[in-house]
């Protein structure tokens, strides 16, 4: 069972109260972009074994979107954070680096 704390209302929501929104921090490439960029936006996703960043919606609750960082292997939740950002907060990245030295996700690397 996955439990995520909604950063908007503070509820510890259980997985069935949430709706998954797929991978986090996608940059949209729409009409006018080249084929490779459009393909990447539409189809290409991370499929990590380990640290992952996702969007979730507290649908059976306050209704707000938020982000979550978790481990796809152990289901450990590193933290949740606002949807109004294009990258995870630094304190969360630091916490992940402590727990998963050498982790990597897209261009987010452990700080040298």
């Amino acid at each position, binding site marked *: 069972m996955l439990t995520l704390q909604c950063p*908007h209302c*503070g509820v510890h929501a259980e997985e*069935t109260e949430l709706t998954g929104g797929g991978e986090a921090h996608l940059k949209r490439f729409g009409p006018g972009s080249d084929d490779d960029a459009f393909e990447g936006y539409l189809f290409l996703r991370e499929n990590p074994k380990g640290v992952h960043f996702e969007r979730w919606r507290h649908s059976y609750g*306050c209704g707000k979107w938020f982000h979550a960082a978790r481990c796809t292997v152990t289901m450990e939740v590193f933290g949740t954070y606002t949807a109004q950002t294009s990258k995870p907060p630094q304190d969360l990245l630091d916490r992940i680096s402590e727990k998963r030295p050498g982790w990597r996700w897209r261009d987010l690397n452990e700080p040298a």
Partner: protein
Amino acid sequence: MSEGFEELCRVRPIARQGMITLRGDLSAKAVKNAVTGVAGVDMPSRREARHVGERAILWMSPDELAVLVPHEEAAVAAETMRSALAGIHALVADVSDARAHFRLEGDTIREVIAKLAPVDMSPAAMQPGMVRRTRFAQVAAGFWLRDEATAQVFCFRSVADYMSGLLRTAATPGSAVGYF
């Protein structure tokens, strides 16, 4: 329920409950005044339900409140709020006839709710004066604890029969788990 058996708690539909939804900036003074003015109840903070008698304000989300008033007052109360909020970015909707409410009374309300909703119902986590939006089995619902032995559950009116069945089943005599 057949006579001679004790339900885990009493389940009673509240026939006519006025309910007004307000969405807007909950930190704005005008919004607070509009809501507390018609409700006659203090402003709740995050996840709180404040009530006096049959009047209440429920915190529904960071930008949403539900105001409970007697059914016959709801239309006027909504109009009062609307005019108090004229020119302010906010939404007021009288949803009295779109919701169904149930009152649960008894010492085992925590157990009855815990059977239906994925909510930590331990006394440490869910305390009187708190409101929670969640699901009861397959439908969206919310509830708040008026006190240690009284809960009020609400859902869309379209699923009122389903909710009534759920609550009565969870309170079936002899089905106590004794967890809390």
